[in-house]
């Protein structure tokens, strides 16, 4: 959990947090009674953001997990309405047996609907269906002054645009209505292809775009050339013969080791092994959706392996035009630094516009990396990466950020000024204070 011994952290366990007053919400009809002792509050879903968008040092957190009721589910149309603290995992448990699936899912199912909306999360199908927010039909926004807006693309449309991807700053989302996607069964027909360079990746990506609903790549960061595995898949058709065995067993990292278990050595070894995990250049398999979408969810609390200092994620998007050169530069910097990333994930976003003013995804290549926190050395490397991304017209994902400079944010999220007029006067976050400095 991101909540340990009553301390609310983010997933990266960095930055360390100070004092936050916790208010646990249970009743979506209740007004927000924000005590005068805390100046500012912020919704907190399941703490799966890596950096500081879900933290509020010196203020209050409105923990939404107690808002976990379903409100309506139409099995015929696949329209689901639920409170904002429901986990995507709980939605899947309910709807998959009835032939429906999430329209968009991030790489973990342990996030709340409200959190998914507020970060306007993306999944492996971005190239075909856009972000999570593209499938939000409506939601209710509760402001600190007690006012409630029912928002959709047609009603209170400005609040709709501000709140999707709005990082929890416009008020509390109490419930969300989603359009689900039909499936015939829980299986995914998947394929894994090895690539040896970024150019090959781009080629595979282009070729697969129309044929595969889901595509994503893992890339070997220790090797600089941009080699990796391209993974793609589709929901299996109704009559697929194979019925794979599924293990729902979960392991847990039982405690936080005193030092990070991720070092240069374990990292290179892991990457080299993973790259060769399959013998053939191309393999196909029918799998259950869980290991396909959520390979990390099988190891609960895996973030502990980085030790008490935590780790930093870095996710950027760069335009397609000239994008490969930028990625080469980024990978070069990382390889040269020797502090490569275990889980480097690469994907090509499509060009469906995101509904949120501050939504991160836009047409281009997106690369996500994580780095053990070695202090100054790590921060300096990330700053070098910023320079590359920034010059190339790219930007960073706030959900994974704990350190980008304010002027970088404001330069790359051009709607921030329009957005800031919609920030609830009683809401704020560590992230927001940092990028507004």
């Amino acid at each position: 959990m991101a909540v340990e011994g009553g301390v609310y952290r983010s997933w990266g366990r960095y930055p360390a947090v100070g004092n936050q007053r916790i208010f646990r919400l249970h009743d979506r009809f209740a007004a927000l009674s924000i005590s005068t002792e805390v100046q500012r509050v912020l919704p907190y879903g399941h703490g799966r953001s890596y950096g500081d968008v879900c933290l509020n040092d010196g203020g209050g957190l409105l923990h939404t997990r107690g808002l976990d009721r379903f409100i309506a589910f139409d099995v015929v149309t696949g329209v689901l309405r639920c409170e904002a603290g429901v986990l995507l995992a709980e939605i899947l448990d309910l709807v998959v047996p009835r032939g429906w699936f999430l329209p968009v899912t991030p790489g973990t199912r342990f996030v709340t609907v409200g959190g998914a909306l507020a970060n306007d999360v993306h999944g492996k199908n971005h190239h075909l269906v856009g972000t999570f927010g593209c499938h939000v039909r409506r939601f209710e926004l509760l402001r600190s002054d007690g006012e409630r807006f029912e928002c959709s693309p047609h009603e209170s449309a400005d609040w709709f645009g501000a709140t999707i991807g709005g990082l929890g700053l416009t008020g509390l989302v109490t419930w969300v209505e989603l359009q689900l996607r039909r499936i015939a069964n829980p299986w995914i027909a998947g394929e894994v292809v090895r690539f040896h360079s970024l150019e090959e990746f781009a080629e595979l990506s282009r070729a697969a775009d129309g044929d595969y609903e889901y595509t994503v790549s893992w890339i070997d960061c220790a090797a600089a050339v941009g080699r990796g595995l391209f993974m793609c898949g589709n929901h299996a058709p109704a009559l697929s013969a194979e019925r794979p065995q599924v293990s729902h067993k979960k392991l847990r990292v039982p405690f936080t080791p005193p030092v990070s278990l991720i070092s240069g050595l374990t990292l290179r070894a892991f990457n080299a092994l993973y790259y060769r995990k399959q013998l053939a250049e191309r393999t196909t398999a029918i799998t259950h959706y869980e290991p396909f979408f959520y390979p990390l969810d099988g190891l609960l609390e895996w973030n502990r392996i980085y030790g008490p200092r935590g780790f930093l994620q870095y996710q950027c998007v760069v335009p397609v035009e000239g994008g490969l050169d930028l990625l080469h530069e980024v990978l070069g910097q990382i390889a040269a630094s020797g502090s490569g990333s275990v889980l480097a994930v690469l994907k090509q976003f499509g060009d469906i516009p995101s509904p949120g003013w501050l939504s991160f995804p836009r047409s281009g290549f997106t690369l996500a990396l994580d780095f053990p926190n070695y202090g100054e050395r790590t921060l300096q490397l990330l700053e070098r990466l910023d320079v590359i991304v920034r010059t190339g017209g790219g930007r960073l994902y706030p959900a994974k950020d704990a350190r980008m400079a304010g002027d970088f944010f404001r330069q790359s999220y051009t709607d921030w000024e329009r957005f800031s007029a919609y920030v609830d006067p009683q809401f704020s976050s560590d992230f927001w204070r940092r990028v507004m400095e």
Partner: protein
Amino acid sequence: MRKVLIIGATSAIAEATARRFAAEGDALYLIGRRTERLEAIATDLKVRGAHAIACEAMDVNDVAAHSAAIDRAQAALGGLDTVLIAHGTLSDQAACQHSVTQTLAEISTNGLSVVALLTELAERFEDQGHGTLAVISSVAGDRGRQSNYVYGCAKAMVSTFTSGLRQRLSKRGVHVLTIKPGFVDTPMTAAFPKGPLWAQPDAIAAGIVDAIRKQRSVVYLPRFWRLIMWIVRAVPEPLFRRASL
């Protein structure tokens, strides 16, 4: 499909238990104080698979209303198989010490109202000769402690009453279950700092459903509380008097 009546249905423990009933397709009738919250819970349980569901608002201290409410539940469900009584308030011990009114009110909510409901229900279950009456008491009822003996004595009343009722009704094939949770992380205990002894409502719910199925008599939830309370009860009075629990 069981026909289940839940009293105090907005309680976190009751709601978690109701979700387990709903997932099994049971029919549920919910009684609680606040209509809006009851309705939100009822809709949720319906989506989760409850077969039929209705709710009504009642303050458990309105003893005169009990009988008719139970009638309506029985009529709506077409009978009753299982009743879970879950309401409660964690008394403000310090305030009670200065107020007779408040002390008696706490004993009424946590003890007398339960006795009244069970008296009403016992008659009906005795007649029908089957079913389960599951009642949430507390480890706090096992021995009075200076920090919460008002709440504790009301729960002791519930534990003792259900013990006697169990003896009486077991002869008629009716199962009476006394549930004694330890520390549970719910709105009732929001103000307490949480440590390793604390359990989540869903873990308690799992224990309740299991105890109903196995027709257990008295369950401590989680189970290690049986040992803790055995020790607490075993401490000799001269020693206990000097402690400040």
